[in-house]
């Protein structure tokens, strides 16, 4: 297995071009509205406090074109009970799915249009609210209300044009509290906060470039002044594929710096899965190689396995699936800490809800005792060139688990399955669910289309700042470095910079330093920096004296003023 240093760095274009890496982003960002998207509930800081709970189940329904979505069918197999926690301050009957939507929040729409203009999109004239199915329970309706504002936009990333496929306006999902066995619990305070989704084409050629896409979108969103900032207000979904692989979506990455390792390891995982397919092909494996299955409850009882034997002791069953001529394949490495068995285990955990790990044992795992395997092999009629996977738990879950093992094996013969995956701390990913397709879309019959009038576009245009490239070109003209511009746009400090600039006589680079790094440092040191407003800067640096002031001197003056005022 090639480690992370098989590429010289995350921007090794030649290496990733060799893999045929293609990567795109879906950036989800909350809009800074006072109210939610389809009701009058206020947007408040998240809280674990709740007043009541409701219990729901989800069933798959047909798409508009008459098809079931594969993700929906997978989620149905999990037989999850979904618990929603309700806080009466932040949730009404709308979020509970006990009342139809009220009208679309016009402030949210106007804010989203500002971003649409900055993204240079082809804007639509009429919004059609769609229902996008989510059967994981993260939205009590079972779907997210969402609409498209525009398609075919353009942004520049390091001077290279990148296509923005579309901009959506949609409602936030719930926050997951826990997911144990067949019960998944959600907190609903975040539900239905207005969100924009910026989708780029898969034009990033290296992991570093993918992160750069995210940074440009972040700068642009901050510049727009219409979004919420801070952790928990933005999430990136990263789409990754390589030549011969498949689109895999890494869901909900909160920090941009996580993106490069995730993309890198995903690309390598796909490559490894393709290698695995070649091995399977060479052994002549077909989809019928995974049919044999046998009850091994007594054997597992004697196995003394911390999880499986426990499950049997609790009244569960154990079953072994024989994978003909698959010896060694389960140990096939897919990442620094993961093997192909990890993928199988993920499926069993997610779909069959056998979530005490390790939830399976297999013959490629040297840690399982050979004596016991002899019994299991014998009972299952498996020889040494076969692999055997054993799962244990409640009868129905085990039936599901066995089927999932087979499904994953068959997918391995095809190569890379289309999946949604979640980020792991190692930079690797784990299976979350089957990747949904367009069949999960359905028109929202509760809301009529919203016609966008010229006035709506004009109001948004009037509110939109100058394009990002123009703003950066102006700053560059003032002598600001790339790092300084990034720092200005890292939060909304750029406003202070632009407002203070005409009222001070400092060198712009010094002003940029003061409003970004220096103020941040003071804030970390416990100084109350909220008082550092335009007027203070004008008072401190408005005079002749500032023209020749050094950075050190200017900083000292600011520190003095802030600490003095605090006293």
């Amino acid at each position, binding site marked *: 297995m090639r480690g992370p240093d098989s590429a010289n760095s995350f921007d090794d274009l030649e290496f990733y071009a060799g893999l045929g890496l293609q990567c795109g982003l879906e950036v989800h960002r909350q809009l800074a509205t006072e109210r939610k998207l389809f009701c009058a509930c206020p947007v408040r800081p998240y809280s674990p406090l709740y007043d009541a709970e409701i219990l729901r189940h989800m069933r798959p329904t047909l798409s508009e074109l*008459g098809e079931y979505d594969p993700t929906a069918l997978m989620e149905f197999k999990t037989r999850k009970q979904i618990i929603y926690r309700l806080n009466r301050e932040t949730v009404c009957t709308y979020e509970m799915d*006990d009342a139809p939507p009220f009208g679309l929040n016009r402030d949210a729409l106007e804010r989203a249009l500002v971003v649409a203009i900055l993204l240079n999109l082809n804007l639509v*004239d009429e919004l059609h609210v769609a229902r996008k199915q989510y059967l994981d329970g993260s939205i009590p309706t*079972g779907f997210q209300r969402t609409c498209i504002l525009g*398609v075919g936009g353009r942004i520049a990333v390091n001077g290279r044009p990148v296509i923005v496929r579309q901009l959506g306006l949609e409602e936030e999902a719930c926050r997951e509290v826990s997911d144990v066995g067949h019960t998944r619990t959600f907190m609903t305070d975040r539900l239905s906060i207005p969100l924009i989704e910026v989708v780029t084409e898969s034009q990033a050629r290296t992991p570093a470039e993918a992160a750069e896409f995210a940074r440009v979108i972040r700068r642009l969103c901050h510049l727009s002044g219409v979004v919420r900032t801070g952790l928990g207000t933005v999430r990136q979904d990263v789409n990754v594929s390589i030549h011969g692989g498949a689109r895999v979506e890494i869901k909900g990455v909160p920090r941009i710096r996580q993106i490069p390792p995730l993309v890198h390891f995903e690309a390598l995982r796909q490559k490894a899965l393709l290698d695995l397919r070649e091995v399977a092909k060479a052994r002549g494996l077909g989809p019928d190689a995974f049919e044999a299955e046998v009850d091994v409850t007594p054997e597992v009882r004697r196995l003394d396995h911390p999880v499986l034997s426990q499950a049997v002791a609790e009244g569960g069953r154990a079953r072994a699936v024989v994978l003909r001529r698959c010896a060694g394949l389960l140990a096939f490495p897919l990442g620094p800490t993961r093997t192909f068995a990890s993928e199988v285990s993920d499926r069993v955990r997610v779909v069959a809800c056998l979530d005490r790990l390790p939830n399976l044992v297999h013959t490629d795992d040297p840690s399982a005792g050979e004596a016991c395997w002899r019994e299991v092999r014998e009972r299952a009629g498996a020889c040494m060139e076969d692999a055997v996977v054993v799962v244990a738990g409640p009868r129905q879950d085990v039936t599901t688990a066995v089927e999932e093992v087979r499904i994953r094996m068959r997918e391995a013969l095809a190569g890379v399955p289309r999946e949604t995956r979640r980020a792991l701390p190692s930079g690797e990913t784990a299976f979350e669910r089957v990747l949904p397709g367009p069949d999960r879309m359905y028109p929202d019959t509760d809301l*009529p289309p919203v016609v966008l009038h010229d006035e709506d576009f004009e109001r948004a245009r009037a509110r939109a700042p100058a394009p990002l490239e123009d703003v950066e070109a102006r700053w560059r003209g003032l002598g600001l470095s790339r790092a300084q511009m990034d720092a200005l746009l890292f939060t909304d400090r750029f406003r202070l910079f632009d407002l203070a600039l005409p009222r001070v006589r400092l060198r712009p680079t010094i002003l940029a330093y003061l409003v970004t790094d220096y103020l941040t440092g003071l804030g970390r040191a416990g100084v109350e920096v909220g008082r550092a407003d335009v007027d203070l800067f004008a008072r401190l640096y408005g005079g002749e004296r500032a023209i020749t002031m050094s950075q050190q001197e200017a900083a000292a003056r600011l520190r003095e003023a802030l600490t003095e005022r605090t006293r």
Partner: protein
Amino acid sequence: MSGDDRLKGYRGPARETLERFGVGVWEDVWLRSRKGEFRGLILPRNETADDRHVVLKLETGYNVGIAADSILEVVSKGRREAHYHIPEREFPTDPAKPRVTLFGTGGTIASRLDYRTGAVIPAFSPGELYGSVPELADLCNLRTEKLYAVFSENMGPEQWIGLATAVAREIESGVDGIVIGHGTDTMHHTAAVLSFMVQDPPVPIVMVGSQRSSDRPSSDAALNLIHAALTAARSDIAEVLVCMFGPTSDRYGLLHRGTRVRKMHSSSRSTFRTIGDIPVALVSREEGVRPLRRDYRRRRDDRRVRLDAVFDDRVGIVYYYPGMKPDVVDALVERGYRGIVIAGTGLGHVNKPLYPALRRAARAGVHVFMTVQTLWGYVQMYVYDTGRDLMDLGVVPAANMLPEVAYMKLGWVLGHTEDRDEVRRLMLTPIAHEITPREPPDGYLVLQGGLPEVERFLKKHRM
């Protein structure tokens, strides 16, 4: 394909635009408007939407509207028609299982989208239902019969009589239970009138619907239908029942008497409540039917049922409000109405200015009954002079009959007789608990949110 189909739902400028570019619905197009380029499938237009936009389904599954007058160029790339269908699987039969007939009147149990109106069309055949709610096959052998396809507000005397007749015929033919799919808005009206029209049935007659249409993953339709089928197939409660969610959670259904039930919330799943009493039973997949009381009519093996399906629709409800003028009552009398149910204030009151109109009504032979708009509690017209005056005017107190139930019963009674004393006797003689002799202490419970003890209850028990 006819030209109409090709431009389905499009009118005015949008239609002209499509005609001009020679494209129609289900055509995959590349389109250039003044705002840019778009690629997608032209969808039919909802007839209630305006005539100035063309709807495209993008490759991502999203729909967007493009202003017809901004379209500069359209190029067709082929056709792709949606083949919308509900997966149909043959409903398995098992001679050991009870036979249940499901009548459809128009509620949505399983449904599909109607492009013309944007509304949902109910799916209904056993095969379609089995495809959507396979659990039904574990409970019963199901036969379905579509009687009507109307929203529940469009149910009326013709449909009530037709439904009652069909139910009686089906019972006589030997089924073990009846389920009636019905829109929820007037489900309690139909439940009440069926209680009078189909008396003393030997098997359960269970009305069911959904508050969230069945095209939503979170719909209550499937679980309600499972509860109703379970009740019809297995319970020993041979009455007209409404079977809908108890709490808003997917936990259990309640079986309400057809004459004591009312829809109490415009959209909540837990909208149906028994008023002035407790429900007959709980029903859940885990525990089956769990009676909450013993005084219900039991299932019998015979196939006798008393069908009495008549209705005089010259009846109205007057919902009294302060300041009401007598002409409201006069208008009904002059238009030939034969019966009036008043939903009065408090214990059953209206203002003095109405007295002459009520006297005129009595003289014209119109039967006037008093109910309470408080819904809970009895009419009691002796407590205040107003009440006594009204009784002197011929207004008959209808005890704790719910206003809608009194309306349905009066229409049914007037289908039999116009004799003053007989109408009065029939109205006040309970047939199916529409009047109860007593209101138990827990018959009136509207828990007040915000109270510490109620909040504690909510935190402990799932809503």
